[in-house]
């Protein structure tokens, strides 16, 4: 009968390509990592499921007027979703530890070396013929080293949308792998004595300082680096809503309903870029390798900057907290705390590591602004 043959022709069994089958497998692996291993579950559950949906043969969910493609166009091509997430992250961020010890901002600056070194590496390997990345692609890959999901998605959406799927997967996967990636590097670059350094208790930070800081940061961005203003502007807005104390209902909604809704659609939209044609290509391996390098280099430069600061300032810091400068909030700060406790079981570095941790968010948003200005036409 005609209808039955039509049903057979429309079926996945008939239409499924090897690429789609493999990508559905990749989606299932991401779900496994998210659910069983708790790898950044908020994003990897949604990205992984979106990836499966995008590879259902013939369903067209990630093309044309399919829901995932609509979400991509509305939310990622426009830049709106990562910016709204960044506003939510701002509303969830406590700048107190950073304000109590502003020099930890230098750690967040140093850790961005991973971004730029990886950019350079991607261009170098392309010149050697190993990969084939142009300047825009290299910049988007480097930003994986910022260890900050919305920043990476925002930059990739602007500079190299065809790599967005792989970049987002790499960024969130390595953020989840921070407890495996960072400790060996941290131990290799520090002495036992350095890891034992105890830090003085952080001072209390007044409410007024907390309110003024996001405005100060906004004004500096406006004066020095306007191309970072969309990201850091929304970040500061979220943080001001949190701290100002007069719009708590807006701040609560931003930290809950709004960020959750946008996370769901952001993840599905990112998943829509996990098509076989775009993901099952050699450059994905390159992105994964380079992204790992970016994390490792960022960690190393953060730790080394910690040691350098100890040479020039009076009040010593434990260089382990430099590793938290890559961002990966709050995982990297917890790792610094854990490695510190191994060396000295009375040494709680968590609060001290939160300073460089949020400094790393600012640092990679600044790096993103530079990239967008210099590389994005």
């Amino acid at each position, binding site marked *: 009968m005609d209808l039955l043959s039509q049903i057979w022709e429309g079926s996945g069994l008939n239409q499924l390509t090897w690429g789609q089958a493999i990508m559905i497998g990749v989606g299932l692996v991401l779900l496994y990592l998210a659910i069983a291993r708790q790898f950044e579950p908020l994003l990897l559950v949604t990205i992984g499921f979106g990836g499966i949906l995008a590879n259902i043969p013939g369903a067209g969910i990630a093309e044309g007027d399919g829901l995932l493609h609509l979400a991509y166009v509305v939310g990622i091509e426009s830049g709106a979703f990562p910016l709204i997430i960044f506003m939510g992250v701002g509303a969830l961020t406590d700048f107190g530890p950073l304000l109590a010890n502003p020099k930890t901002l*230098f750690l967040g600056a140093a850790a961005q070396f991973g971004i730029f070194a990886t950019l*350079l590496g991607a*261009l*170098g390997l392309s010149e050697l013929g190993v990969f084939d990345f142009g300047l825009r692609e290299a910049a988007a890959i480097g930003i994986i080293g910022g260890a900050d999901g919305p920043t990476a998605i925002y930059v990739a959406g602007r500079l190299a949308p065809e790599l967005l799927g792989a970049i987002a997967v790499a960024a969130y996967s390595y953020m989840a792998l921070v407890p495996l990636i960072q400790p060996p590097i941290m131990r290799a670059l520090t002495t036992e004595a350095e890891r034992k350094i105890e830090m003085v208790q952080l001072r209390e930070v007044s409410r007024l300082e907390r309110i003024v800081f996001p405005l100060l940061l906004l004004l*500096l961005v406006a004066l020095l680096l306007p191309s970072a203003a969309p990201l850091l502007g929304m970040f500061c807005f979220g943080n001001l809503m949190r701290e100002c104390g007069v719009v708590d209902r807006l701040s609560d909604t931003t930290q809950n309903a709004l960020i959750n809704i946008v996370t769901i659609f952001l993840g599905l939209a990112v998943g829509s870029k996990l098509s076989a044609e775009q993901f099952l290509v050699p450059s994905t391996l390159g992105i994964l390798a380079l992204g790992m390098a970016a994390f490792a280099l960022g960690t190393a430069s953060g730790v080394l900057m910690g040691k350098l600061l100890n040479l020039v300032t009076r009040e010593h810091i434990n260089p382990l907290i430099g590793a938290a400068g890559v961002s990966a909030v709050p995982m990297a700060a917890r790792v610094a705390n854990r490695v510190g406790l191994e060396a000295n079981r009375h040494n709680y570095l968590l609060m001290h590591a939160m300073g460089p941790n949020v400094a790393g968010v600012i640092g990679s948003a600044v790096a993103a602004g530079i990239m967008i200005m210099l590389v994005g036409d």
Partner: protein
Amino acid sequence: MVQGLHLMLAGMATVFVFLSVLVGATVVMSRVLMRLQGEPGPTADEVAAIVAAIERHRASGPDR
């Protein structure tokens, strides 16, 4: 490749300049606000010293 090197240098320079300015501005901001709010503010001893200084100043200056 050379372009990448330039980008790296310009990029890291900008990151460091930006965050250094931010460190400076934050330190100044905190100091100014602490002074404005008197927080943690001068201790009782400091107040005594200041009061004494003012009185000495007044006592010494016939021009005021």
